[in-house]
Structures are given as structure tokens and as C-alpha cells.
């Protein structure tokens, strides 16, 4: 019942063992492929606020240009492609910007 499973320890203790072996022999051989590799976020956490501000700013500029275009150009001469492209670019920037804003403010999605 209260047995100590060795299997769970093998996975984790392989790392310290490797490092001690390396320090003893002073060799710089890289750890084997079996050693667990830490996983970090794709973007450094410290960049989130900057990315949020920059991407939201770009996104809002495109949004503004989209609405200026909608309001000033008459219905007949408006081009659907241009509207869609501006909208897509704006939504990509706003989407990533709001994601980074959420992450920077501590809402880890």
C-alpha cells in the first residue's frame, strides 16, 4: 500500500545524476535525448506589455483607417477587397494585441 514506486523517481533523478557525472569528469557532453527539457512560453513573459501596446496601437490605426474609409468614400466607389484587407489586418493586430494584453494583466488563457 505504501510502496514507493521507483518508476516515478527514475524520470526525474536521471537529470541530477547526469549533471553530477558531468561535473565529476569535467566533461561538457550534452545531456542525452531522454533528459527532460524545460518548456517555456513561445514569447518571453517580459515582452507581453510592450507587445500588447504596440500591436493594439497598430490594430487601432488600421481600425481607424477602416472606419474613415467607410465614412468618406461613397457607396458606389467603395472597393470590397480594400475593406476586407484593412479589416483583416486590423483584426489580426487587435486579436494578438488583446491576447497579449490579457497575458500581461495576469489572465493566462
Amino acid at each position, binding site marked *: 500500500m505504501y510502496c514507493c514506486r521507483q518508476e516515478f523517481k527514475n524520470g526525474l533523478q536521471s537529470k541530477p545524476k547526469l549533471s553530477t557525472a558531468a561535473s565529476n569528469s569535467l566533461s561538457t557532453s550534452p545531456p542525452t535525448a531522454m533528459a527532460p527539457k524545460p518548456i517555456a512560453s513561445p514569447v518571453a513573459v517580459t515582452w507581453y506589455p510592450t507587445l500588447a501596446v504596440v500591436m493594439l496601437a497598430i490594430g487601432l490605426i488600421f481600425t481607424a483607417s477602416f472606419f474613415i474609409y*467607410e465614412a468618406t468614400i461613397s457607396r458606389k466607389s467603395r472597393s470590397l477587397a480594400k475593406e476586407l484587407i484593412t479589416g483583416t489586418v486590423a483584426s489580426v493586430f487587435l486579436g494578438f494585441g488583446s491576447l497579449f494584453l490579457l497575458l500581461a494583466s495576469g489572465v493566462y488563457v
Partner: protein
Amino acid sequence: MRKMVLRLDVFLLALTILWAPALSDLVLSKVDRRIDLTSQIARITSTLKVENAGSGLVSEVLLAFPESQAKHLAHLTATPNEGKGKVKGSGISYPVQLVHAKDMPPSLTFYSVSLPKGLGKGDSFTFDVLAVFTHALKPFPEKITQADIQLLVFQDSAHYLSPYAVKVQTLSVKLPDARIESYTRIENTKNIGSEIKYGPYENLPPYSYSPIVVHFESNQPFAVAEELVREIEISHWGNIQVTEHYKLVHGGAQSKGEFSRLDYQARPHVRGASAIRRLVAKLPPRAHSVYYRDEIGNVSTSNLWSDFKKTELEIEPRYPMFGGWRTAFTIGYGLPLHEFLFESDGKRFINISFGCPINEVVIDTLIVKVVLPEGSKDISVSAPFPLKQWQEKKFSHLDLVGRPVVALEKTNAVPEHNQKFQVYYKFNSLAMLWEPLMLIFGIFFLFVTGIVYMHVDMSISKSSASYLAKLQWDEVQAAIQQIRNIITRCLVIHDKVEASLRDLSRTGDIQACKAARKAADGLLKELSKEMKPLLAFLQSSQQAAHLLPKVEELVVKVKDLEERLMVKHSTIVDCYEKKYGGREIENRVASQVQKITALRQEVDDLLEFIDEI
């Protein structure tokens, strides 16, 4: 007290009736037991020296616990004995298993320790057994007032209860305080300060039992978490969020009578000695965004210290907790992802501590929920002790199908269970993009709505005069915009012609200048062709009547500008061909240049006027 001793006697009687001979030929040549009662958790460390007196090979040693203890047993490990200067956490422990033997007394619970190698004839082996008991210390009296001290009772046997004969044994009981109310005195009993020593006793037969009762003062807080739910949420965007919901009760002597805050504040160590004042949680290093709140909101009585080794959170409940009082609160913190999440063999796993970070807390029901990111597959758990396990779904921010949750339950958890456990799962990194994609599509949907709204004709009556007028006005506007665009392009071409003239004065390349002129002529002709139908439309439209003069004026002015520019151009080119001097050329085109500047100004004014429509 007398009743309790009587009960133990009955138990002893039962034992003698159910006497059974030891199965193997093992003999315990030396047993040292140390009972640590300094906290609310009773820890019994026994050093056993096993000797094989028979001839067969023995690889298992049985440990016996009376039923009264077995039901409080929270943790049991057997580790190699490393002498006095023992190194903790060497990580090696021998497998311990619950066994049900038929020919053993049923009032005893047996655990068997598998030795690393079998004991031959005459061999001996020494190892440590750590047994941890919760709720084994009973408050006596069970109810005290605010001013009373808390007294506890602990029962055990002075003789090591074992299916084997024991040659030499000693027992020492360590208490938190030197103030001892009473303790059972048998032969060879000594009391030195806060320690009581029994033994040595020699050559005792199997199943010897000599009940002892220690009644002592202890003002240790009895923090018992009736339920602790730890939620560990993994976000691959760089964070592990841990949220711990505590339902805490003071499990010591019940408080009776009234509570005086004044007495408590004036002399806290006399009036409320056993109350829980504060709790200290040892969080992992680099824990951030730590909070401590309950149902009402933030609890401000907390302190946080951190260094590179640990983060210490000291929390004070809203009120000092006396015996039987309850509180519920939540603490939460974020941890950096890369210190707890790893990848090996294509699988990701989180390696994080199982138990509760608060010191010396007994947890009746501990539920650990690991919330994995959406889209995790092939989930498996590896833990150092048996756990009840099930799976759930949780909906959190930006979820479509819900996040898989691995729930693990452990009853009767003690700080010894603060061991690392692992949850393995498979996850595709591209699945992280679901969240930004959802945001992008959400915002894109708004833009599409805007486009549709601006394009769709939403008027109800399609034949009313105002509607038709509006349609016409739209067309007029479109035509004017097109004319404006054409004129802008014309002006750009004019600028190019001017530029070619400047190039000519710099390089003297007449052929290039002529070519530029030719190209410009062609383009301008095309543009004026484009302009014609638009102008015709404006002339025919009633709506444009008031704008027409301005537009026509603009068109005429632009035409005029073009002509003068061309005249200027031909004159200059002519002059260059005839190799006139710079002054001469300037004189010839001076009047044209003046007019061109004036016209350009007028055209700009008109364009501004048209833009304002």
C-alpha cells in the same frame, strides 16, 4: 483517565487471547523508538535491527499496529539506517505493503517491508521505519475556556508491538514542553525535561504490550484542513496558476464559555495560548501575484517574504482561531512555467509538489486538480503514493471544448506527502494558437458586420422620392469622386513633366525629355477620355446642378494648366535645341510660369471645395 486505562487493559486481554506464534524465525535484536509529539502530528521513528535466527532465507519483515493506531496512520516508510548523522532525502525507500494474514490476530494491522536483499542464516540488517499518525493526540479535557491551557493524551505501548521476539528495546517520547501532567510509570522510566524515557527492556516475547499514557501540555495550534482543494492550472503562455481553497478548523480542545477580545489582546499568551494566530505557507521560489482572500474579499493581514530559495507567505485569519472554530479562505499564486513543465519522449509533464504548502497542517481530504490546456491528450499520472483519481472538464477563458482536468484525492494527508508528482500529457504547440485565432475571428466578425451594414440597402420603401434622390445623390458623389481621382492623376503627370524639365536643365538630355513628354501626352489623353462620360453624367443629373459650374470650372482650369505646361515644355526644349543661354530661356517662359503657378493655386482651391462636399 481510569476509563481509558481500563479500555487498554481489555485490549491487552484480547491480544493475549488471540495469541499467535510468529511465522518466521526473525528476531529483533535491537529496537529504538522515538515518538515525536512536538506538533499535532505524532511521528514514530523506529530503528529496527533484524536478525535471522532460523535457517531459511527471509526477505520480508512484518510491522504490527494495533487497530486504534492503524486507523490514524497517514504515512509509513521504511528507509535504510544511515547511523547518527543521517542524511535525509537520499530517496531510497523499501516497499511497504498492507498484508492480511489469516493466522494473525485480527485486531492488529500488518504491513510488510520488503528488504533489498534476503537475510541468510545469522545475518542482520538495520533500517528505520517512520510512521506518521494524525488525530492520535486527543485533547483531555475535551473542552477548555479561553484562559485554560490545552492538555493532550497520547497512548502507545512501552514495549514494541511486534510478531517477533525483541532482545533489547528503548523508547523515548519527546514532548513540546517540560510541563507534563502525568505519565504511566513502569520499570525503567525516566523523565528528563520534556522527554520521557522507557527502557531498556530485554528479551520480551512476541506481541508484548504494555500500555502507557502520556498526558501533557501542548499549545501547538491544531490546524486541520477538513478539505483542501488545490487547483493547478497550466497555461503554455508561461504560467502555472495555483489556487488553494482551504476549509480550516482548529482540531484541538473545544473552546467553551465566552471569548473576550480584550483579554486576548492584552495577554495573548495566557488568554488564548492554543489559538491559531497565524499560518506560514512556504511557496516555491519565484512565486508571483500572491493573493489571500476569502468570500468577503481580500484579507489584508498577510506578509510576504521572498528570496532565491523560497517564498514565505504569512497569513493571519480574520480572527484568532480557538478550538472547534472554523474558517475558509483561498490563497493563490503564479509560478513560472519553465521550472515545473518539462518535455521528454514527445510527452509533456508537470512536476509539482502534491501537498499543502502550509507548515504542519493535517488535511482530512486533499483534492489536487491539474487543469491541462485545451487539447491535451493521453493523460497519465505518476505519484509516489496511491491516490483516488478521476477526470473532469473545466471551462475557463477562451475555451471551446473545455480543458481536461485530472483530479487526485488523498485522505489523511500530512506534510510527509509534500512530494513531487507528475502528470504526463501530449499537446501540440499549434493548439496554443486557438486562443488568438478566436480573438481574431471575433474582431473580424465585427468588421464584416460593419462592411455588410454599409453595403446593404436597408430602406423599406424602394420607390419613395427621397430614396430615389438619395440614390441619385450617391451616384453624383461617386462621379465627383472619380473626377477628383482623375484630376489628381493629371496633376501627378504634370509634376512628372516638370521633373523632366528639371532633369533636362541638369543633364541636357533632350531625347529623354521628349520621351517623357510623349508618355505624358498619351496618359493625359486617356484620362480626358475617361473624364468625358462622367462629366456628361453630371450634366444630365439634376442633383449635380448646383455643383456642375464648379466642377466644370475645375476641368477647364486643369485643361488650361495642361496646355500652358505643354507650351512651356516645348519652348524650353526648343531653346535647348537652339542652344540658347539660361537667361534667354527664363525670359521666354517667364509669363507662362507665372500663369501656371496662379492656375495651380486655383485648381488646389477648387479641389479643396469639392472635397468638402
